[in-house]
């Protein structure tokens, strides 16, 4: 990331003050709607009904039905809820790893810092999807494979940021005083550095979320995620492939577009939070 200060431009001047609140409200509403929908919609839409196979979208089935007559709307909402649950868990795990390694690397001895930076290079270098497939293969797919695979491939960028921030604070007056008073590095990390790194970690978490959700869908699509009965977006799409290719467009359009919208709203929220945190970074 460049540390260059970008001058105020026309776009920045016109930056709407309410944009962050609006983005927050929109994303919150979306999450609430998906969560509520997934609880309220009963299992009826998930049972197959041969009489209503491959129906195009209608009032009764807003997203149409699939090749077994299941209601696509129910399946998509349940799939998005599942994606978000997995995303939350994975992004949280990854953020915790970033925070611990980032702060530890900045505080610890030079060899440890070098080891962490080598580890970061290693994980940046391995093609992520390929590594996730390897993990899913080892763990045997399912939720553990997905969470572990995605969490271990997403902590690097944030860890680098936290490390850089912490290094700047390492020699700050209050840290020196604390050290002079005989406080342990663990105490300094927990009481002084973690609270200051927290906003960065929070933004990192929100920005990580979209990547995590996209990777979960990709892994599931390739067949490394959930069992075929689970309504996950990746499974809906891989299952629907033959029928999409015979012209049933709604099987592709709705799962994909809703996933895109969910991911996009989180990505925008993350960008706005980041630019609030660091005004030098302009929003897109």
């Amino acid at each position, binding site marked *: 990331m460049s540390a260059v200060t970008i001058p105020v431009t026309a776009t920045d001047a016109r930056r709407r003050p309410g944009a962050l609140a609006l983005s927050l409200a929109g994303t919150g509403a979306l999450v609430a709607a998906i969560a509520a929908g997934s609880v309220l919609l009963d299992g009826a839409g998930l049972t197959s009904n041969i009489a209503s196979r491959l129906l195009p979208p209608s009032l009764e089935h807003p997203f149409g039905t699939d090749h077994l007559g299941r209601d696509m709307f129910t399946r998509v909402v349940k799939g998005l809820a599942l994606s978000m649950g997995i995303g939350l868990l994975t992004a949280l795990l990854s953020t915790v790893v970033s925070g611990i390694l980032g702060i530890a690397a900045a505080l610890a001895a030079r060899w440890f810092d070098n080891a962490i930076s080598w580890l970061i290079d290693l994980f940046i270098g391995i093609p992520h999807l*390929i590594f996730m497939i390897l993990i899913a293969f080892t763990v045997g797919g399912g939720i553990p494979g997905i969470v572990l695979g995605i969490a271990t491939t997403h902590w690097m960028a944030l860890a680098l940021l936290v490390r850089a921030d912490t290094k700047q604070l390492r020699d700050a007056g209050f840290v020196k005083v604390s050290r002079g008073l005989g406080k342990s590095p663990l105490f300094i990390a927990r009481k002084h550095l973690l609270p200051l790194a927290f906003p960065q970690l929070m933004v990192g978490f929100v920005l990580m979320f979209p990547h995590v959700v996209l990777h979960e869908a990709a892994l599931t699509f390739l067949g490394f995620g959930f069992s075929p009965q689970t309504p996950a977006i990746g499974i809906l799409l891989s299952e629907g492939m033959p029928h999409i290719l015979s012209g049933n467009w709604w099987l592709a359009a709705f799962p994909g577009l809703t996933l*895109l919208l969910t991911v996009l709203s989180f990505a925008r929220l993350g960008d706005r939070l980041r630019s609030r945190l660091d005004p030098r970074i302009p929003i897109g």
Partner: protein
Amino acid sequence: MSPRGARADTAGVARFLAVRLLRFATLLAGVSVLAFALVLNSPVDPIQAYIGADVNISDEQLARLREYWGLDGSPVERYFAWASAMAEGNLGVSTLYKAPVAAVIGERFWASFALMGAAWMFSGVIGYALGVVAAFHRGRLADRIITGYSYALSSTPAFWLGIVFLAVFAVWLGWFPVGLAGPHGVPAEEVTLTQRLRHFALPVATLSLIGVANIAMHTRERMTDVLHSDYVLFARARGELNRSVFWNHGLRNSIVPAITLQFAYFAELFGGSVLAETVFSYPGLGSTLTAAALGGDVPLLLGIVLISSAFVFAGNTVADLINAAIDPRVRTSP
């Protein structure tokens, strides 16, 4: 530059190169340890899988093979037995294809190479151009369209974009065939170039489009910096117009970061190609990797993981070298 300065600089470059190459080697060793450890803990034994392809093997031969591979040794011994075989170019035998892994990979390498190479070029050129246009029109309609489009693209699942392309261009409009590298049932030697290109078009389009967003947004930021610099202000004061500002200042100050970024993009490119190849049943390394992992073909899986990681590390190293060649500060900092 004084001769002494030049000599110091050469030494610096040599040191930098040595450090980078050493790092490349340790990273590759790191991946091999990691991959081996992961597979060792999986339900399938990595070395057992090498002989798995051959059923007609006597107990005596099996015992000798176990000894040869050091199957009864500790995990560390087994790793070194495996790694030294790898280093000699013996990647083992694919259980899925009943052929040496090196041959299976070699057969599919060029298909993937063509796909990723073309997507890499297209996404680089188009992404750079879009970034430049956006920066020159910052805040106006063209910028808004390009930025919005990049945002939407970076939130689009790559495999879904492939499916949409298939549904629209292959099924609905019927412009392109549905998949594979050539028409079904035609021997590879008889597939004409036009047929090949028609089968190639949609996977390349998917992969290129996904790659555009990243480089467009970075170029836009970089070019905006350039356009707000004092030297561009001076150039404009001299009466230079957009076109000459771009050719005289913008291009040379923004093309190198863009190229560096494209080299660092190798990791994402590999992931995207796994998805695009799977959607389009394109016979490359990506779809083979999926098949290997789903079919428990450990030697092939490990082989592709190592080859692809080597490629990405090479890409990152090239990016570092380009950066260092252009910007001396990178070389001299430890």
